[in-house]
C-alpha cells in the first residue's frame, strides 16, 4: 500500500479527521496528504513548521529532562485538535493530523501510530 493510500485509510476510518499528512521534518516538507480539508502548499508548510515547533523547546527540553525524548504531541485549540506523531526509528518521519474535537483520540492515536510504522518500514 502506498503512502497516500495508507493516509486515506485513516481518513476513511475517522471522518472527524480533516487532514492527515506525512512529513519529513528534517527537510520541512509534507510529502503526502489527504482529507476533506482543502489546503495550499503554504498551509502544509505551516503545518510542518508547527510539527517541528511542537517538538522544540521549551516543552521538549522539559520532557527530555523528566521522561525522555517525546515522539507524540497533541495540541488542542478552540476549534480543532492537531496530532503530531514522530517515528520511533526514524524521527524525521512524522504524521501531522488536524481533527475535529469529536475525534476518538485514543483510537485515532493508535491508528496513526500503526500507519506511521507501516509507512516508515515500507520506506
Amino acid at each position: 500500500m502506498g503512502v497516500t493510500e495508507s493516509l486515506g485509510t485513516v481518513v476513511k476510518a475517522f471522518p472527524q479527521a480533516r487532514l492527515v499528512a506525512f512529513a519529513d521534518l528534517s527537510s520541512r516538507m509534507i510529502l503526502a496528504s489527504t482529507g476533506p480539508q482543502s489546503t495550499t502548499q503554504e498551509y502544509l508548510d505551516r503545518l510542518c513548521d508547527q510539527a517541528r515547533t511542537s517538538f522544540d523547546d521549551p516543552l521538549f527540553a522539559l520532557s527530555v529532562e523528566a521522561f525522555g525524548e517525546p515522539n507524540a504531541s497533541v495540541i488542542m485549540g478552540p476549534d480543532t485538535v492537531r496530532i503530531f506523531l514522530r517515528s520511533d526509528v526514524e524521527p524525521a518521519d512524522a504524521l501531522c493530523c488536524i481533527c475535529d474535537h469529536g475525534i476518538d483520540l485514543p483510537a485515532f492515536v493508535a491508528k496513526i501510530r500503526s500507519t506511521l510504522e507501516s509507512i516508515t518500514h515500507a520506506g
Partner: protein
Amino acid sequence: MNRGTLPILARLHSLQTATRILPGGGRVISEATDRNPVAQLLRVANETMLARSLRFVSSAGPSLTLDVAGRRILRVTDAQGLVDAEICLGAEVLEDEHKDELIKLFQGVAALRHELHVVSGPVGRGGEEVSVGLPVALLADLLLIELNVTEPDEDPVEIVEEVAPPTAEEIAAGETGLSGFAAAMGPALVAWLIAGGAEDGRTDGPEEMVSHLQGFLDDERDALERQFDILSATPGEAICMILGATLVEGHSIVGARLGPAILLGVIEGDATTATLAAWKAALR
C-alpha cells in the same frame, strides 16, 4: 459558472448585504457571530480599487490601518494593541517577506467573537503613487479564504462558546478554567500548577514535582508563551499541548494557556482518554 463573473456577483452580494453604520462614519464588516472575521477584512480590502486608507478596529480594542489600492495591501501605517507590528510598520512597501507578519496582524485585529469595524479615509503616506504591495488574493490563498462570496457565509458561531477567563465563582466550584481542566483530567494528572490569572497559585501533587514545574515556569514562561503563540491561530489564543513518548503509557507533559493563566503538569499513563473532555471543560 464563468469565473469572470464571480467578482461581479460577489460585489452585488456585498452591495445587497445590510450595512450597519457606526457613529463617526465607520461600518461593521464582521459581527461577533462571524466564523471568519479575517475573511471579511480581506474582502473589504479586495473591493478597494482606488487608493484608500482602511482602519480596521476590533471591539476587543486593537486596530490596524492599511493603505490599500488595486486589490493590494500597500503598507501598514498604524497598529494599536497588536504585538510584533514593527516589521510591517517599518516597511515603506509590503513585500513577500512581510506576508506572514501581516497575516498575524490580520488575525490579531480580526479576533473571533468580536465585532470588526472599518473606517475608510484618504490614503496615508506615499499619496497615490503606484506601489506593488501584497495582492489580497495571495493573502487569501494562504489563509484558504474565498474572496468572491456569492452566498451567505456558513453558520454563525455561538457566542456562548466564548473562551473567557473563569469567574471567581466558577473557579471556586472547580467546574471551568484550568482548574476545571485539572479536575476533569482526574488522577492521571499527577502534578500540576497554575500561574497567572484568577487561578494563580493553585497546585496539586507531590511537592517535589510541583516545585520542579514551578522552577521551569519561572525560567521559561516567556519562551513557553512564544511556543504557544507559534502553535496558535492568533497570539494569546487558548491552547493545550500534551507532549509524551507515546501518550498512552509512561509520563507526558501538559501545558495549557487560557487567558492570562498557564497550567503546567505531568500526566501519568494514558494521556488521550480524558484529555478532550477536560479541555472542553476548561473552555466551557
